[in-house]
C-alpha cells in the first residue's frame, strides 16, 4: 500500500531541500510547507485513477540509436565556459 495524503512538515521541507541541494531559511521553510501542502492536496485528484490502468509506453517506429562513431568536437569551446579551470582541467570543490 502507498502512503497517501501526507501532512507536510517543516522537517519534510528541510529534508527535500537537503536532497535537492537548496538551503532554506525558516521563513521559506514555513512558506513552502503551506504551499506544498495545498499543491499536493490538489494532486490527489489522481487517486481516483484505477490501479488497473496500464501505463503505456510511447512507441516510436523511428526510434533508433545513432552509430557509435567519433564526430567532430570542440574541447576548447566547451572548456571556455568552465567557471574555474586549471589548464585543461575543470576545478571542482573538494569531495573529502
Amino acid at each position: 500500500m502507498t502512503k497517501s495524503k501526507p501532512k507536510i512538515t517543516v522537517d519534510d521541507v528541510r529534508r527535500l531541500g537537503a536532497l535537492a541541494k537548496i538551503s532554506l531559511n525558516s521563513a521559506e521553510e514555513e512558506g513552502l510547507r503551506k504551499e506544498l501542502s495545498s499543491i499536493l492536496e490538489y494532486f490527489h485528484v489522481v487517486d481516483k485513477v484505477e490501479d488497473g490502468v496500464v501505463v503505456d509506453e510511447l512507441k516510436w517506429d523511428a526510434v533508433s540509436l545513432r552509430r557509435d562513431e567519433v564526430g567532430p568536437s570542440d574541447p576548447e569551446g566547451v572548456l571556455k565556459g568552465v567557471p574555474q579551470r586549471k589548464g585543461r582541467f575543470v576545478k571542482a570543490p573538494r569531495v573529502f
Partner: protein
Amino acid sequence: MGKLALSVRETARRVSAGEVDLEEHVASRLERMPRMDRDVHAFLYVAKEEAIERAREIQKRAKRGEKLGRLAGVGLAIKDNICVKGMPATCASKILEGFVPPYDATVIERIKREDGIIFGKANMDEFAMGNTSTSGAFGPTRNPWDLERVAGGSSGGSAAAVAASMTALALGSDTGGSVRCPASYCSVVGLKPTYGAVSRYGVVPYANSLEQVGPIAKRVEDVALLFEIISGRDARDSTSAERTARKSVPGTKGLRVGLIKEFFGEGIQEGVKKNVLDASAKLEELGAHTEWTSITSLNYALAAYYIVAMAEASSNLSRYDGVRYGASLEKGSADWNTAFSKTRTESFGTEVKRRILLGTFVLSAGYYEAYYLKAQRARSLLRTEFKKAFKDFDVLLGPTMPVLPPKLGDKVTPLEDYLIDVNTVPANLVGIPSISVPAGFTGGLPVGVQLMAPHFGEETLFSVAGAYEEVTA
C-alpha cells in the same frame, strides 16, 4: 493586422531577387531594437553585430545569383532556452549567467541553413516554468497590446517580439502550453508540434517527455513554413521522428469539429467563451459540423501534468552545480555539498525551487506510487480517450486560455497560477499537435482559440486555422 505585413515567403523572395538592401534594412532595424523593446522587454540579448554580419553575407550571395534559403533575410527571435552558438543562453536564470553555448541546437542549424537571421534571444519564465514571463531573473516581458498586462509564458518574449513586429518569426518551447499561452495573450499564431516532430537537441531540458520547440508568427502560413523547416528526424535526438507522409487534409467543408465540454466549464471568463464559440460558428459557416463532446479524464490532466513535469524538472535541474558552466558562487575551499548548495540557493528563483522540491517529493520513496505512477496512469487514460475522440472528430476545439491576460503584479497563489494551464497541458500529456489562433478581442484584450489534431496532424491544423484566419484576420 496580419495582412498588412509581408509574408515570410514574400520577404525571402524579395531578398533573393536583390530587391532589398538587406544589410541596410537589418542594421537600421537592429539599431532601433533597444528603443522598440524598451517597454515590452521581449529580448534578453539583441544580436546586432551577428545579425548585420549575417545580412551582409546573405546579400553577397544574392548578388552572386546564388539560390537562397526559404527564410532568406527573415528575422527571428529565439527563446533563451534554445542554444545559438556564440550567443548567451540564460533561460532567464542567474544560474546560467555567463553561459555561451559553443554549438547550435538542431532547430537553429536548420534555420541558418535556410538563411534566417537571428535578431536575438527572447525573454521567458525562468527555465520555462510559468505562464506569465515575469519569473525570469532579468525582468518581466509586457504585453504589447496592454503594457500593464503579462505577455503570457513561458515563451512571452518570443510571442511579444512577433506581436510588436520586432521580428517576423519566433521560436518558443511548449512543455504545458508555453507557446500557445503567450500566442493567445499576444494575438499571434503559435504551434505546439506533435511530440517527436521537432528535435530537442540543444534545447535546455525542463520536462523531456512533454516539451517541443514550436514556431510563432502573425499568420498561419508562416508558422507552417517554419514548422516545415525545423521538423524531421535528427540522429542526435532519439525521440525525434521522421515526418510521416502527409495524410489527406480535410478542408473545412464537412470537417468534424469536437467542442470539448470540459474546456468551457468552471473558471472560463465570459468574454473568452463568447469569442471562442463565435470562432466555432465561423467554422460552421465554412461548412464544418461542430458538436459538443466530453473527455472525462481531462479532470486528471492538470494534476498529472504538474506531477510529471516537476518530477522530470527535479532530475533535469540537478545538473546545475556551478562546476562545468554557468554561475559558480563558491570559489573558496568549501566542500562540494556546501559549494553546490550555495550556487543553487542563490541562483535559482522561487518558482524553480518550488518545482524542484515538489518533484523531489513526488519521486521519493513511499510517495512514488501515490503520485508519479498515478499520474502516468492518468496520462494513459487521456491518450486512450483522445484517440477515441479522434475517431469521431478531425479536430478538437476550445479556448487556449480560460482567461484574458492578467495584470502584472496580480497576486495569486502558486496553485491558482497552475490552474490556468488547464486547457493547454492535455496536448502535451497526449503528445498531439495543437495550435492557438487569434480569435479577436474582448474588452480590448486578445483571445485565442485552440485546435488539436491527432499525432502528426499538423497539416490539418494549418488547413483549418488558415481557412479561419482567411475570413477573420
